[in-house]
Each structure stands twice: as C-alpha cells, then as structure tokens.
C-alpha cells in the first residue's frame, strides 16, 4: 500500500505539516519550532515530552494560533483540526473553535483563573460563550462540571483564592472540558501540584477522557506521567520531534540517542545505587542552532553524516526517528530493547 493510501485510513483529529515558529527579538532570531509535523488520531492521547525550551508550549500555542505577534512569526503548510483548515479561519471563527473544539490548560494554572469572578461563573462563562444556552442553563452545567471534577457544587459561588492549588487545577480542568472539546492540550497540568494531588488530578483526567473520548496532547517533561496516561509519545528537541511512536516503541524500543539520554538521566526508583548517566552539555542556544542535527554537540554517536539536515526514518508503521545514524549499517544505541 502506498503511504498516501495508509494516510487516508487514519481518522485524524489533528494534522500539522511543517510548522515553523520563530521569535524575532533584539538578541536575535529564536528558532522555537522548526519544521514540525504532527498527526494525532481521534481519541488518542499523545505525550509531548522534552526539556525546557524544546518548543512544547510554543507548538501548542501555534495550534491555537495564539503565538504572540510580534515577536512571533508562524509559518505552516497545513494545520487541520478535525479536517477543518485552521490557518484560513477568521478571528470570529477561531474564537468559536477555541474552547469548543480545542481547548488548552495552560502551564501556569494558578494564574489561569480570574481572581474577581467566582469559579462557577468562570466555568459558566465558557459554556455561555460557546454554546447556545441561557446563562442560567450555563450556570447549572457549571455546577455539574464542578461536581464532575470532585468539588462540591455548593462551592461554585466561591472565589479562586478560597481554593487550594489542587482544587484550582481541577477548576481549570473543568473549564477546559466544559464544552467537551475534541482535543485537549494540557501544558504541564500537574507540575505545580504535590504528588498525592497529582495522582488525584491524573486519575480525574483519565476518567474524563474515557467518558468523553477526548483526544489529548499532554505536554510534560515527566516520562512517568506519559507512561501513565498516554498511548503515544513524541519527544521534542530544539523545536522538532526527534522520535515518535507508541508507548512500547519509545519506552521499550528506544531509537533516538536523545531519548536514550533522557532515560539514562532518570533516577531509577528500584535501583538507587545505579549511577545517573546524564546527557553531556546543555541545550543549544535557539538563536544559533548547530548545523544539521541539533543534538550533535551532545550526542555520543555523532559522526560526520550528522551535519546534514535530518530527515525522518521510519522504523515501523507507528515509530519514527529523526537520526541519520540509522543509515549506518548495523547501527544501534546502547539502551537495550526490553
């Protein structure tokens, strides 16, 4: 079967081709996202992992067309949400889509709520804006949403400052899910929370996702969270996806040297004496990315072939890697398949 034919069969909720985002600042041009392709099938949950500055948040903002301009400049070949072209949409249409079809939980949950409105009103507002209902009806649904995220409905009249961190985050989730979006982007939704509260919130997200068949992009740097709630993983480095596959592909049949480095950097909870083997060096400066593979200055497998621009190598129908070392005969990384 040709690749085109395979593509046709997929039921894509999101289809992005060649996304580029740069920030034109006084200190130079920050190349935040560089030729990113991303396909997400309906109902799937994909973990977008990568370290600070990899371009995760910028990618998410670009999907919502929320990259600040200036200094941001976005170029993209294709951006389709549920088969609809988002690039060509006017502001009015976009505003309808945001919150209704695609919604986002922002990285800093504590500032996502407006301190002067009650939490009930904030949820109701989103429903009222996006759906053809009366405000009274919207408020009723807001109360139901609150209860869904485990907060007693009678607290709808309280203000954000009366809630703890974990409860605020659940309110943010309630707002994001109030209009049953098809795609939810959650940007580090539990980073600010304690682990026992994180466990509650992840549990909640898992349940709600099952209930509403919501597709999910989970942005995180925690591979443990990915293992827990995602079906697929995309590993980002310097503004592009360097490896993508199912959980089994990426965790158990790791291919990219950077992904290997990430796993080797993690303390092993079961073997406390195991030495950590960090990736050497630092993230490249996004204003002057190295030629060819951006990981080459830190990569233990780097060779002369790595100075050419990297293209995708397919490992299987579900798994790809952006590393030319796989063109070398017999090449493999040290991490063993499991």
């Amino acid at each position, binding site marked *: 079967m040709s690749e085109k034919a395979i593509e046709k069969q997929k039921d894509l909720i999101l289809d992005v081709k060649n996304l580029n985002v740069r920030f034109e600042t006084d200190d130079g041009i920050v190349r935040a996202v560089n030729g990113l392709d991303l396909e997400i099938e309906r109902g799937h949950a994909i973990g977008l992992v990568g370290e600070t500055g990899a371009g995760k948040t910028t990618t998410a903002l670009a999907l919502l067309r929320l990259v600040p301009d200036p200094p941001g400049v976005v170029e993209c070949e294709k951006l389709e949400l549920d088969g609809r072209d988002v690039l060509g949409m006017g502001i009015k249409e976009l505003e309808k889509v945001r919150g209704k079809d695609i919604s986002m939980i922002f990285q800093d949950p504590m500032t996502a709520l407006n301190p002067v409105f009650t939490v009930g009103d904030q949820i109701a507002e989103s429903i009222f804006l996006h759906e053809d209902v009366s405000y009274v009806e919207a408020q009723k649904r807001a109360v139901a949403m609150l209860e869904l995220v485990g907060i007693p409905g009678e607290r709808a009249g309280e203000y954000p400052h009366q809630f703890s961190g974990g409860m605020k985050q659940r309110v943010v989730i309630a707002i994001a899910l109030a209009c049953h979006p098809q795609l939810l982007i959650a940007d580090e939704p539990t980073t600010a929370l304690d682990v026992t509260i994180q466990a509650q919130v992840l549990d909640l997200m898992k349940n709600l996702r099952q209930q509403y068949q919501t597709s999910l992009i989970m942005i995180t740097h925690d591979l443990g969270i990915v293992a827990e709630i995602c079906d697929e993983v995309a590993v980002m480095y310097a503004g592009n996806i360097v490896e993508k596959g199912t959980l089994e592909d990426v965790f158990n049949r790791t291919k990219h040297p950077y992904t290997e480095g990430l796993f080797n950097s993690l303390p*092993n909870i079961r073997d406390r004496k195991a030495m950590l083997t960090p990736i050497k060096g630092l993230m490249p400066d996004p204003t002057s990315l190295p030629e060819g593979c951006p990981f080459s200055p830190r990569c233990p497998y780097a060779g002369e072939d790595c100075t050419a621009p990297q293209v995708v190598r397919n490992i299987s129908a579900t798994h790809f890697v952006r590393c030319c070392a796989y063109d070398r005969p017999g090449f493999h990384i040290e991490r063993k398949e499991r």
Partner: protein
Amino acid sequence: MADTILEVKNLTKYFKTKHGMLHAVDGINFKLARGKTLGLVGESGCGKSTTGRTILRLIEPTAGEIIFEGKDINKLSRSELRHARKDMQLIFQDPYSSLDPRKTVSQIISEPIIANKILKTSADIDARVAELMSTVGLAARLFNAYPHELDGGRRQRIGIARALAMEPKFIVCDEPVSALDVSIQAQILNLLKELQAEFNLSYIFITHDLSVVNHFSDEIAVMYLGKIVEKAPAEQLFDNPLHPYTKALLSAIPIPELGAKKERILIQGEITSPINPPDECRFYKRCNYACDRCKALPELKEIAPDHFVACHLVGEI
C-alpha cells in the same frame, strides 16, 4: 552514630499570623552523620524549607536546639555565628528570586569570597570564580552575563557555585534540582555527589521528588504538617514504608516504565491548615485508617533499628 555533624532537638518554629499560630515546624528531632545525606520530603507547606532555614539560623527558632559540630548555634555570638556560617551553606529553592538581578554572574559568585576576605586580588578572585563556574558547568562566556539572560538551569548553577565558594562542610540543598531538566538534573546530582565524596560534605536534601530523594539520600525523613511522620534508611523506607501517609506518597510516584505495577493508594483531600492544628494525628483527616485512637497525637517511635514511625496503628495495618 559515630561522627555526628548536626543534631536537631525538638526544633520548633511557629509563625504568628492573623488567624493564629502557624505550626510550620513542630518539635522535630534528628541527627546527621558527617559525609551523609538526610533527605527531607513532604508536600508543599509541610515545613521543609523552614526546617532548613531555621537550622542555618536564617530564621530564629521558636524552641529547640541545633547542635552543629558540638555547639548549640542558638547560643553563638554574632561573630561566632558568622564564622560557623562559612561551614553551613544554603542552595536555594527558587533560582529566579534568589539572585540579585543587577549583578553579573561573576559578581554573584564572588560576593561571599569578597565579603569573607577569602581571596584578595581580583586576579585570584576571577580565577576562583572561573574554576567554580566550570565545576558547576557554566560556560566561561557567561562570566559577565546577568541572571535574566540565563535559563532556570543555568541560574540554579550560579546558586550552587556560590554556595561552594565558601568550601562549606554542610549544605542545606533546598530543592536544588526541582527547576532543572532531567538531563541537567542528573548532571547536578552527580556533581553534588562527587563534591560530597571529595570534601566529605554533609547534606540536608530537601525535595518533593521522591525518585530523586531515593537516589540521593542515605536516610529519609518524611514530613507532614510540621512533624516528621517517618524516618528510615532510604532503602528501608522505600521497601517497607510503614506510615499510611508514606505509603500513599510512594504509591503516587509516576514510574517511567511500562507495566510497572501500580497499586495506587489514593488519599482524599489535601494537606490541612497548619494554623492551630488540633492535638490529633496530623494525618487524621486524610487517613484511610483513622480511628478513635488517632485523636491523640502519636509520638515518633523506633519500630525497627533506625526506622522511626509516628502512627498509633503501626504494625496493625
């Protein structure tokens, strides 16, 4: 314990607030052996930072003794305290707010060297700063950079370089890697371990990341609302947690492996207010095992060698 560098007895810190007394640290006891690491874990607000800061006397304790190298540091005069402080350093939790934005990287790192007259000529000082920068992995070109030009990871490295500048014996590391990426975090953890081995440093390592604390600590103390609820050698704590809170906490760690067995103990609600807490077990409101006996505050008791637990039902659950 053979060579104790630090002993804390009944350490207590209350803050007066509008609504009453806030029990940030509520009568905790522990010893730290020279060259070892005590990990301090627990949820936000349980009193970890306050414990660290009180030990360094950056905050005056409400009660208790802090015996460092055989001396109660509460009883030291100003000049003695200044001297002792060289041996005791702090690596801060928040690399953003702890650095003076108007100073360059080299000025920040050299500040304690100059203030304590460790080195005098600017050539010597610059050389030492350069050495410290390379130790913590800061590129030499950042010598004259300002903190705001750097990312969180590099800013945290400045804080570590600055703490190392005094060649201390003991460091309170307050979430030193929480703001860092895993690849950088691993570099810093390895670095802190190497420094420990080289200079026989003793650490109190504060974190909420349980896989990090497991990797890094010899002993771990779990705090909850100002109290130590369990303390044990790291391996034992992870293999055999006995306090209901510790059990829930450890079960909540997301493990970056597929098919990792997960028997999650979900606990309800969140940490309660530390203001005028009632004299019941501090975990009473969230504990799945709470019973009438728990209305009395449990003592921290040695259940097995070096394994301390504060729970009435230990052994029964």
